[in-house]
């Protein structure tokens, strides 16, 4: 019987070796994937024993997120508190036990809990663990400027929409506001969570949604900036190319009319005018004809150069980002054959199922401002250790060279016309610095209800800031009248601070 017993013994040992192998698989190979599962609360709860790092605004002094000590069942836990009650709430995000995390609290969780791979941090954390001292996370300094953020949030108060301000030279996000907003301090309790989801006094819901990075809006005439980029950069047109505007453009044998003139009945009619003048006064027929000439395919290629059809590469959680582009049945859609599947004229002036995020349009303005070089946007400029030493500094990176410098210079001039004599002239009268911009007034399908847009950068000769503003569903709300004044406030807040 001994041979059988020996074999049975080997079998028994093999079974247990299989258990060791299985355990190894789950604790090493599969561990990372499981830690990221939405319904895995263990990692999240365990990290409440760590004193999370603080989150600062760009001045390194204003604390946007800090910690509150709480003794629970003999354990010291650290809960989040947000002293400003929601300044840049969507960027900062929240960190709670009950719900997962959002915003920078999520995308920089490794740094905030000192579990990042950095050698110094790992050394310090291990030492703290061995000493039995509370592990303290690294601090995160945002690129968000307090004053600019406050101006953006107060300008949007009572309205639904978003404001994004970028430094076109670096890609730093100086302000990013989404309205309505919420107080992240409410998020820990079920009652507070319910309250945070309400937006009394607003005509829209979903205050937790970051409209700046996730809100998808029809771009209206701000999209003419993209079309003009394609028209000039391909060499198909020049700013002084001449067009004749009968008040409409003919597509598929039918008339596509210009926007209605608010002072007269019927569409505006300009007669003979240049491409630049068509930009200044936002004449749809001119861009419709450009679209027909260069084709939808070329325009879509240029949207991709600007970063459409991908999540904006900003360091926020991917779940909180939406790509801009054509949407079909609520899904991002890139036509197989743009020439037959997309209406080039309507696409050229910002209709035809094109949806964009405010962040993406701010990047469009910033790319023109920066001589055609688009910088990768970022919200975190620096990470410091609890002792104050710098762990990491964000270095500006080029996202893409979108257009030739000459194209950018020509567009810059055209966009300045908009604020001096064009659709946004009234909003920028007397500002004292050259501003380059473009209005947009997207149709909503409701009579006289529009989505006003404005994108701009300033000073136009040496741009230091680029802004995008969108406001939802305003009755008789035009880009020049509603969105441009908010952009003006932003420019003054940021440039005045310099």
């Amino acid at each position: 019987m001994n041979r059988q017993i020996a074999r049975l013994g080997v079998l028994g040992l093999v079974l247990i070796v299989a258990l060791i192998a299985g355990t190894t698989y789950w604790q090493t190979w599969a561990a990372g994937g499981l830690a990221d599962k939405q319904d895995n609360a263990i990692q999240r709860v365990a990290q409440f024993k760590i004193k999370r790092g603080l989150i600062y605004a760009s001045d390194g002094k204003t604390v946007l997120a800090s910690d509150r000590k709480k003794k629970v069942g003999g354990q010291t836990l650290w809960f989040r508190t947000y002293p400003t009650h929601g300044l840049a709430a969507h960027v900062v995000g929240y960190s709670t036990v009950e719900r997962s995390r959002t915003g920078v609290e999520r995308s920089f969780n490794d740094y905030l809990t000192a579990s990042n791979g950095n050698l110094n941090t790992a050394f310090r954390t291990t030492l703290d663990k061995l000493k039995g001292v509370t592990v303290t996370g690294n601090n995160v300094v945002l690129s968000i400027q307090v004053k600019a953020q406050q101006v953006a949030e107060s300008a949007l108060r009572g309205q639904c929409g978003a404001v994004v301000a970028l430094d076109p030279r670096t890609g730093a996000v100086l302000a990013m506001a989404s309205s309505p907003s919420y107080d992240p301090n409410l998020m820990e309790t079920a009652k507070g969570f319910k309250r945070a989801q309400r937006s009394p006094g607003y005509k829209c819901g979903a205050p937790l949604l970051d409209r700046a990075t996730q809100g998808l809006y029809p771009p209206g005439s701000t999209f003419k900036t993209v079309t003009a980029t394609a028209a000039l950069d391909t060499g198909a047109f020049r700013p002084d190319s001449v067009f004749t505007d009968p008040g409409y453009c003919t597509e598929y044998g039918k008339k596509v009319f210009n926007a209605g003139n608010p002072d007269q009945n019927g569409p505006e009619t300009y007669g003979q005018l240049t491409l630049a003048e068509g930009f200044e006064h936002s004449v749809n027929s001119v861009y419709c004809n450009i679209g027909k000439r260069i084709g939808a395919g070329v325009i879509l290629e240029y949207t991709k150069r600007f970063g459409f059809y991908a999540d904006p590469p900003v360091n926020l959680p991917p779940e909180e980002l939406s790509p801009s582009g054509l949407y079909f049945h609520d899904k991002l859609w890139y036509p197989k054959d743009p020439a037959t599947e997309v209406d080039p004229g309507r696409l050229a002036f910002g209709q035809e199922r094109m949806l964009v995020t405010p962040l993406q349009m701010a990047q469009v303005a910033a790319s023109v401002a920066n001589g055609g070089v688009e910088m990768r946007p970022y919200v975190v400029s620096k990470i410091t250790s609890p002792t104050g030493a710098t762990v990491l500094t964000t270095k500006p990176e080029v996202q893409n060279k979108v257009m030739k410098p000459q194209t950018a210079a020509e567009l810059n001039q055209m966009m300045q016309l908009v604020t001096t004599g064009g659709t946004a002239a009234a909003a920028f009268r007397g500002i004292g610095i050259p501003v380059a911009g473009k209005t947009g007034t997207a149709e909503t399908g409701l009579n006289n209800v529009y989505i006003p847009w404005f994108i701009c950068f300033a000073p136009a000769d040496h741009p230091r800031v680029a802004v995008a503003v969108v406001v939802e569903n305003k009755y008789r709300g035009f880009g020049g009248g509603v969105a441009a004044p908010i952009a003006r406030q932003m420019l003054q807040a940021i440039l005045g601070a310099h």
Partner: protein
Amino acid sequence: MNLVAVGILTGLGFAAVYISQQARLSTGSLGYAVFFFALYLVAHVVARFTVPQADPYLLPMAGLLTAIGITEIYRLGQNDALRQGIWIVVGVGFFSAVLILLRHDYRALENYKYLFGIAAIVLLALPAAPVIGATINGARLWIQLGPFQVQPGEFAKLCLIVFLAGYLREKREVLAQGRLKDWGPLLLIWGGAMLVLFETNDLGSALLYYGVFLAMVYVATGRAIYSLLGLGLFVGGSYALYQVVPHVRDRVTIWLHPWTSHPVPCPFTGHLALRQDCQSYQLVKSLYSIASGGYVGPGFGKGTFTTPDGTPLIPYLNTDFIYSAIAQELGLVGAAALLLVYMLFVARGMRIALYADDGFSKLLAAGLTFGFALQTFVIVGGILRLIPLTGITLPFVSYGGSSIDANFIMLAGLLLVSDRANAGRRA
């Protein structure tokens, strides 16, 4: 030499208990360590006098496993630890009683093999009986004796192994020839046991019994064909069950696809839910626990098992899923070390079977040891998704009085066989 090994192993075990509980719960735990050590000494002294020649490693290893188990149980809930402590005292009592009663010649048991076979079936059927039968967590595996719940299945397992050892020893030659008449009583008792197990939905135990049965038939007859045939029957039977019994089909589905990205019907609530929030909730949460342990884990007493307000994150942690708790707190290093102890135990147990003089002793030791190994595999393998999960206890470690007491009796059995074999060799 043997005493040194005993000392080192137990010393380590109790140092673990003491240090970890010191860190978290200060002096209250010291009493446990001292009490536990005293209890271990009692078991050791009894073993020294009754089975002086027995394998010196088994008792320390069992002590170590028990110590790890009660430490983790204590860490998860002090009331359960107190109850488990009482059961361990009872277990050591059983252990001593078996050693003292059978110290002259345990082989007398062979004469009562049919009695053991019938006892196994009666014990298995007890929970289904009215009045004393009790249903806990949806399984009818317990009987209520005053304030205590007893799981007779744990003891039935031992009875069945004794029966099989006796019967197979007697008939091994004729069985090898394959005459149906000789297989009769064997299949009758074993089949009855299987029937009861399927009736009570205790699939984990069914798998365990079937495996032990096949293993012992193989050892007795030396005919691998029987075991292969049995394995084929098992696969076929499982497939048939999969087709017919929805409960079995559910288990397999949970095993293969614990996570769904879309809501599926949830039989508990009747609504749609993600499977990880419904049927595979336990399995998935336990895997999260294991995974969060990583290489070294946070250490005894520092794992995360509840939210700050005390809501459990992992269900049935101290019984079926105690391995998940240990793997989280001690990490891969600790979990692998624990499994290595199981491996050593199996190696020593099989060594005893090899050195035993007579067929009954060999079969008994091999059956007890393989049962121990297979039980470990069924529960931990289920937790690790190597096989479909069925809830049974982890030997010596899980919370549960019947389990720990049955394990101590099993340990006593192995020591008896070992003592006799060693005494014979030295004489």
